[in-house]
């Protein structure tokens, strides 16, 4: 929809010394990295490793105790998220960003039709033609493999896998440049997971999306991501290209994680 401006050798998002503490408990300590346009980064670790806290800080939903997150806006300027006004932040969320929740009920309006769920972002940015909104919603339903005969049904009548695909369509309809995903396949059956991962991989490739995926499932990381960050007790303990880290982990903890899943 909108041309991505600027050369892709400039980072899209930069985390710099991100720290979050609750009293004496540090949930996340001194995390720094840069994410480039079109790049998919997986953050892996067990529950309690701080990866969800990190994702919330990266997506400006939680204020860090230290450090900062910067994002390159569509005009090419890198801005500190903490300095954005609420209107700008919410606008980013409706247009240039997507956020896929583990529980689709949190990311969807469960009592509103699938068509309106997908169309909401378009209407929020001023689309005012019912026919065009519906047309766009239908084509997105097709892209995420939802029967368009179900366009007027509410997601509460959908299966778990369909809900998750609808949530993805709802996020991608404004063609964002960056999508945050929090355990996107959690809570789904294995066969359903495989189909969803396949779909996500092809969408990410087609659209040239950058994504930050939080997961405890290394299979998800292997299928979707270019790079992996391994977290333990609030710190990043290992980072690198996905194949490298997963095939040849250096840290004993990463070795343990890798050995506890089946090889690809």
């Amino acid at each position, binding site marked *: 929809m909108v041309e991505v401006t600027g050369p892709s050798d400039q980072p899209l998002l930069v985390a710099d010394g991100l720290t979050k503490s*609750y*009293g*004496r*408990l540090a949930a996340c300590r001194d995390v720094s990295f840069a994410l480039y346009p079109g790049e998919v980064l997986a953050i892996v670790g067990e529950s309690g490793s701080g990866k969800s806290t990190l994702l919330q800080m990266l997506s400006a939903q939680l204020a860090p105790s230290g450090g900062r997150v910067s994002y390159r806006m569509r005009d090419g300027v890198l801005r500190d998220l903490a300095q954005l006004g609420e209107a700008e932040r919410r606008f980013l969320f409706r247009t240039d960003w997507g956020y896929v929740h583990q529980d689709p009920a949190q990311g969807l309006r469960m009592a509103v039709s699938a068509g309106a769920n997908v169309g909401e972002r378009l209407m929020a940015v001023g689309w005012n033609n019912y026919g065009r909104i519906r047309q766009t919603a239908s084509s997105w339903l097709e892209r995420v493999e939802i029967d368009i005969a179900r366009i007027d049904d509410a997601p509460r009548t959908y299966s778990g896998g369909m809900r998750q695909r609808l949530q993805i369509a709802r996020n991608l309809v404004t063609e964002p440049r960056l999508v945050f995903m929090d355990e996107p396949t959690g809570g789904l059956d294995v066969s359903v997971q495989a189909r969803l991962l396949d779909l996500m991989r092809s969408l990410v490739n087609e659209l040239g999306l950058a994504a930050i995926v939080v997961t405890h499932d290394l299979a998800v990381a292997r299928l979707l991501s270019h790079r992996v960050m391994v977290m333990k007790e609030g710190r990043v303990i290992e980072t690198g290209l996905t194949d490298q880290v997963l095939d040849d982990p250096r840290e004993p903890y990463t070795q343990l994680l890798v050995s506890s899943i089946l090889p690809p």
Partner: protein
Amino acid sequence: MYVAVKGGERAIENAHRLLAHERRGDRDVPELSLSQISEQLGLAVDRVMSEGSLYDRELAALAIKQARGDLIEAIFLVRAFRATLPRFGTTEPVDTGAMRVQRRVSSTFKDIPGGQVLGPTFDYTHRLLDPGLAQGGDPEAPALAETSDVPMPRVTDILGRDGLIEPSPAAETDAPVGDLTRDPLSFPAGRDLRLQNLARGDEGFLLALGYSTQRGYGRNHPFAGEIRFGEVEVEFVAEEIGFAVPLGSIELTECQMVNQFKGSATEPPCFTRGYGLAFGQSERKTMSMALVDRALRARELGEDLIAPAQDEEFVMSHSDNVQATGFVEHLKLPHYVDFQSELGLLRKLRQEFAEANAAPALKEAAE
């Protein structure tokens, strides 16, 4: 031929005449006096004063008489009158520690300095209808004892000396106390406004909410630290004089709940407080209020917000029975203009539905 309905004005007048007639009841039965109401239905008067936010027994009795005993209607009458009164100023905070106590019980200690004082209470009465009362007659005079000057410190003050309960947030003496009747409410509201809202709130609503916290919807493990009822002095600083002068005394009930302790990385564990206060003797109200006050502090104390009683917007927006009764009862007002447009829309939708469903049948018939 049709002539549009007229004559509403006379109908209203006649309805009000009939109301006055019904209020009086059988003319052979002696008419109620205000002193009978304030003396013999004292707890009803207390409730009307509390939720009407006006300490005036005589006006509350009048309101109860005028409302035919409908207490929410009586509260409404008192509130509407109160809204027109000029505001001279704000009294000094009353000192419930210096209360001339008629009743004072604590469930957290067997005995306390000053002792447990039962006072006038329904507690421990057997709830048997009393035919003797139906006939009337003078009850026995109350038992008397020497008054003692033993001070009656508040139980929470005793706990507070050892730091076992969080300190009452020190009031900033210069900061103005919010007034819901003079400023519109906005969220999040400070505790001053929350307490004011609860003090004016409907007893039944607070009772149900307080009860819900006990049943697990926002449980906060309360103990009735202390309930006390008695007279306190009200003082007012008149600017011209420069010092506080007593205006008189009022009866109050105060309930302090002592709740589940809590600590964090930086704070040692201690008990927390819930507070209830009402005019007159209103134990059910103050206990419920204290439970709900504590529940509403969930956010401040870092607890999960999961239950209705913890939801500030939900509780404060629906606690006022004068607002609630007005809006529920306004459904009696004519709505026929809106109903007409709904009727028109419904007919149109039904017609469209019928046409859409008739079409395939016709086609089949044609084939």
